[in-house]
């Protein structure tokens, strides 16, 4: 029987295999940031260990960096200490760091691909759950905890149990590809499979609805695999993938011969079997808006906030969860999504802060003004994205519309830096999690695409973006 792409990558990285037991898996790239690494470095020091492969380890600071003027000192002392600690650790252990003043600083999952560090067929880990993003390049990429970070630093390997394989086929063509985006596809998938639908699996996304997507859009899809409970998500590499990585800063010198190998080998065999499959048809899907407190609580923009009974379909815990969510979100069941008024807009995060996201959002913003009741900000995913956007004049389009134009970082996706919601504030956010308090204690998050976030900023409420002149 043939193998799936995931199994091929797994098999190629097995160092030690135990029958019916775990495998020791070799790690090709380890990405490190300031929040989940300090205890791991402390552990190395305590046990007198070195970093096994500093040349395969890359660090940046993204989670708690302020996104205002970089020439100003960092006011939050605990953040400043965490940032300083990463600098010291990288220096001591010989790890390349893109620090807060580096032109290559940015969200770790945005800079990896941009710098050509993310490669097809490789294993990539990072102490961050959204590491699944790199799967867009046909890599096996997943998030790990701090103990595992220490284990990889010390040994460049991890003991892992082999996950199951899950194929998600995305069939058909979107009628309004500018109004209905990759974010709407992945939110639809999570709405249908549930937040635990992918538990214990690695998802392979396939079908015309995926191969039609650009690399940046594929990253949005793979990024949110973890929100469906999966270990990782990946897409078989194709000519788009190879073209994206050609000629980047760290693209390997023997790139073309690698491409030949990848083209031949990095695909699922026609007779391979997945443990699980799901198919989504996207011909008629609508823009998506989350209404609750997990990413599965999502509906079409044309629908209304559901009644808990209708949402739960007989599951008591789901009913209770929906009731709690409505209370937390201060929403009444039956309210049309387009009547929900917002206070804030956040365009940013490792899900949706790449150049294409900003270009698509800017088309809606151009010549318009943000609603007087809304405060809106754009936080580019990396300093490189920021520069590229500025070269295209996007910063002017956003600032003339009264958007704030910020420096790169995770920012309001997780509320670790000063960019947070106040209690009760309602935000249209291009990020990945709408958990209670995620964007600040008491803050209310609606997950949407960059296009929807931009339209909501102008109108002050959600709109059916298909009715705008975008295509």
């Amino acid at each position: 029987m043939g193998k799936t792409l995931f199994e091929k990558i797994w098999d190629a990285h097995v160092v030690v295999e135990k029958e019916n037991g775990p495998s020791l898996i070799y790690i090709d790239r380890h990405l490190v940031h300031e929040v989940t690494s300090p205890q791991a470095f402390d552990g190395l020091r305590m046990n007198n260990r070195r970093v096994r492969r500093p040349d395969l380890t890359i660090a940046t600071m993204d989670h708690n960096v302020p996104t205002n003027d970089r020439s100003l000192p960092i006011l939050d002392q605990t953040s400043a200490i965490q940032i300083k600690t990463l600098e010291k650790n990288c220096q001591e252990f010989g790890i390349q760091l893109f620090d807060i003043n580096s032109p290559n600083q940015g969200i770790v999952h945005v800079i990896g691909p941009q710098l050509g560090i993310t490669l097809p067929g490789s294993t990539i880990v990072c102490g961050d759950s959204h590491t699944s993003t790199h799967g867009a390049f046909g890599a096996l990429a997943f998030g790990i905890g701090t103990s595992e970070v220490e284990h990889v630093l010390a040994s460049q390997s991890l003991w892992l149990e082999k996950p199951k394989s899950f194929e998600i086929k995305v069939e058909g063509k979107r009628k309004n590809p500018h109004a209905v985006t990759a974010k709407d596809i992945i939110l639809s998938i999570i709405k249908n499979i549930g937040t635990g639908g992918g538990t214990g699996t690695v998802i392979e996304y396939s079908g015309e609805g995926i191969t039609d997507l650009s690399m940046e859009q594929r990253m949005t899809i793979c990024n949110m695999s973890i929100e469906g409970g999966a270990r990782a998500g990946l897409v078989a590499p194709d000519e788009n993938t190879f073209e994206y990585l050609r000629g980047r800063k760290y693209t390997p010198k023997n790139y073309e011969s690698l491409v030949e190998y990848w083209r031949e080998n990095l695909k699922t065999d026609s007779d391979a079997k997945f443990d699980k499959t799901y198919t989504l048809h996207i011909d008629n899907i609508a823009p998506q808006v989350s209404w609750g407190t997990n990413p599965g609580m999502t509906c079409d923009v044309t629908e209304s906030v559901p009644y808990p009974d209708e949402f739960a379909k007989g599951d008591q815990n789901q009913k209770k969860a929906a009731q709690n969510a409505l209370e937390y979100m201060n929403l009444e069941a039956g309210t049309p999504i387009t009547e929900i008024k917002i206070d804030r807009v956040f365009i940013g995060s490792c899900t949706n802060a790449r150049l294409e996201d900003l270009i698509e959002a800017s088309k809606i913003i151009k010549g318009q003004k943000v609603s007087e009741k809304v405060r809106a900000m754009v936080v580019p995913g990396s300093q490189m994205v920021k520069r590229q956007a500025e070269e295209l004049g996007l910063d002017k389009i956003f600032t003339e519309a009264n958007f704030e134009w910020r420096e790169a970082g995770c920012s309001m996706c997780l509320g670790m830096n000063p960019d947070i919601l106040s209690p009760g504030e309602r935000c249209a956010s291009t990020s990945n999690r709408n958990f209670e308090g995620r964007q600040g204690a008491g803050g209310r998050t609606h997950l949407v695409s960059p296009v929807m976030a931009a339209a909501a900023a102008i109108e002050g409420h959600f709109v059916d973006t298909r009715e705008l002149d975008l295509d």
Partner: protein
Amino acid sequence: MIKYERDNIDTDVIIPGQYLKVHDYAELATHAMEGLDPDFHSKVKEGDFILSGKNFGCGSSREHAPIALSHSGIKAVLALSFARIFYRNSVDGAFLLPIEIEDDAYQGISEGDEIDIDIKSNQIKNLTKNQTYKMKPFSEIIGKIIEAGGLFKYKPD
């Protein structure tokens, strides 16, 4: 036993992002479950267990989540299922035991019940109600990491 009758308890409510800069574990513990249950810190006792539904610990990879629970006194979380990173984090640092249970234990155990867990026989005894439930056995690697006292003490055969 502290019971949260809900699914999808995420790491952002177990320990909100603003506290990921806190390195003192005792202080971290004072903010455990703050996003969901502000009374948690005052009611939790050394040796307590948490009981919850499906997909416990979903979300971020922050090891701060099991650390905050562990340093609050929580020795085990019993849940219908776990998110993978939380599950591994719990055993890798020997912070707490993630115990997968079936519906009988989920329905049968109430807040305040006294529980005894035997991971050798995979049995959960409810001393208050005099009931016994099965727990899902740990996989080989997880069992060995737990037995060793954490990932760094685990030595493969």
